[in-house]
């Protein structure tokens, strides 16, 4: 073999090894968190762990239902706020705005992604929490957390919805307008339904981002372990539970935090699978048309 052939082969195998790294890391994350979390699952029992309402590490009580509810409610609140704003903005960018408007909006949306989550948390702490306090409670609440999180998931909803609105074939628009529909009738009755799968994917990916957010949530949600009874009530998220306690936890307590991580990992996995499925379905729909 000449040296070129050897170099060629080596290069190929090196890139294959590089590519395998992501698979190895994903596997390692799963194995490590599961291995560390297993003792807690065994000691507490999966059902008691998931549906237990008391989290008192001092008394060996580890139920994460309050945190599951906390994460779900904040995510729900954030999505209720972000979906109308995000879809409106996506329609604006895909259909209404001029080229120059878009040149202003695109970097703006990118910047929104780039702002560190602690900065969101800080602004929430200084502005949103005191504002919510005016309504009632301490201000550290599900409502405050939802508002902060809304701003953080907005870019995800906007950019994926915009892409899928754009992907609707131009022929649809020409046909709708030729039938005498107004711009809005075309958007509402044709474009939005045609882009439905992609928009769903954007929303689901936004939810994934929302459930995974940690630092900003710790800063504005109050972190008390209670089953929240109103949107003004303080709460704790699954992510916050891990971050707040992992540094000093030991034994079953530490293992229970890893179990929390496993649950988080599984929720994200499920959401991503739904999003991938929705995106693929969206692509296929237009391909047939």
């Amino acid at each position, binding site marked *: 073999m000449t040296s070129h052939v050897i170099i*060629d082969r080596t290069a190929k195998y090196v890139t294959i090894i590089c590519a395998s790294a992501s698979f190895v890391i994903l596997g390692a994350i799963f194995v490590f*968190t599961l291995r560390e979390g297993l003792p807690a699952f065994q000691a507490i029992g999966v059902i008691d762990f998931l549906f237990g309402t008391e989290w008192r590490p001092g008394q060996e009580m580890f139920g994460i239902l309050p945190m599951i509810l906390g994460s779900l409610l904040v995510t729900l609140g954030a999505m209720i706020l972000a979906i109308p704003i995000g879809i409106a903005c996506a*329609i604006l960018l895909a259909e209404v705005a001029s080229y120059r408007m878009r040149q202003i909006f695109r970097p703006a949306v990118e910047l929104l992604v780039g702002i560190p989550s*602690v900065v969101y948390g800080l602004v929430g702490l200084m502005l949103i929490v005191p504002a919510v306090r005016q309504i009632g409670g301490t201000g550290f609440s599900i409502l405050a957390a939802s508002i902060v999180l809304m701003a953080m998931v907005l870019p995800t909803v906007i950019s994926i919805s915009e892409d899928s609105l754009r992907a609707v074939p131009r022929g649809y628009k020409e046909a709708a307008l030729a039938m005498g529909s107004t711009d809005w009738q075309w958007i509402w009755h044709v474009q939005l339904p045609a882009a439905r799968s992609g928009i769903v994917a954007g929303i689901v990916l936004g939810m994934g981002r929302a459930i995974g957010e940690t630092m900003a949530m710790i800063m504005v949600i109050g972190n008390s372990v209670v089953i929240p009874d109103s949107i003004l009530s303080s709460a704790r998220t699954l992510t916050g539970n891990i971050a707040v306690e992992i540094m000093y936890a030991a034994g079953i307590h530490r293992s229970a935090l890893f179990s929390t991580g496993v649950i988080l990992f599984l929720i994200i996995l499920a959401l*991503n699978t739904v999003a991938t499925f929705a995106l693929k379905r969206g692509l296929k729909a237009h391909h047939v048309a």
Partner: protein
Amino acid sequence: MSPKTVQKIANVFVWGGGVITIAILLGIILYVLIQGVPSLSLEFLITPPKGGLGGEGGISTAIVGTLYLLGVTLAILLVPGIGAGIYLAEYARDNRFTRIIRYAVETLAGVPSIVFGLFGFALFVTSLHFNFSILSGALTLVCLLLPTLIRTTEEAVRTVPRSYREGALAMGASKWQTIRHVVLPAAMPGIITGIILCAGRIVEETACLYVTMGGSSAMPTSLFSGGRTLSLHLFYLAMETRAFDKAMATGAVLIIIIISVNALTNWLSQRYQRKIRGG
């Protein structure tokens, strides 16, 4: 309602969405800059934090910590990230191995920062005894950023026109020679954009570093010393010492860095696209 009325209401809805989005962005940026910039000074940047409860002092060790982490993370990240990107763009066939790799990259991209943190905490901090250190933080970040660099590299390599490769191969270059001397140089601006994107993420990340770096405010002296980044420093200031003016000043520094990074990537990618279209 007549279609015309509906159209008018719809216009308000659509523009409302746009205005709110821009207002949120400008609101955050302006608020942090207005609150933070007055306490910014050269002295603030070059003084170490005193570590007291009042949050006195500056942010010099956090700046050094951020740069240290940035350097170590990128040094470890570049080869596997770019290598995998090249594999996916140039070598990968549509087979099971490729599908598994793509699935892993996609899934990894969605895993929350704190789960990477848990993993880093279990593997690097405790099992491998790197303790709370820059090295533990950097290795955790490498895992977190790998998908980003792989995707941007793959995209950059794919944008290089087919004719470049055909030209090189027709001249008798081997596959690797083609990639090394023709494709990679042409894709380099795109790859650099991806690297800058990763650098931005390193500055932004907090959760996974919170549980792997330890947050010491002392000046880092080696890979194995603990440390804090600017983002972590902001968190400690706001949550532990409650020094909000200092937190705002640190926030202003972060905002300025992020705006510069975004402007740089936009400028680079615009130039790059023009070049590819022109060539």
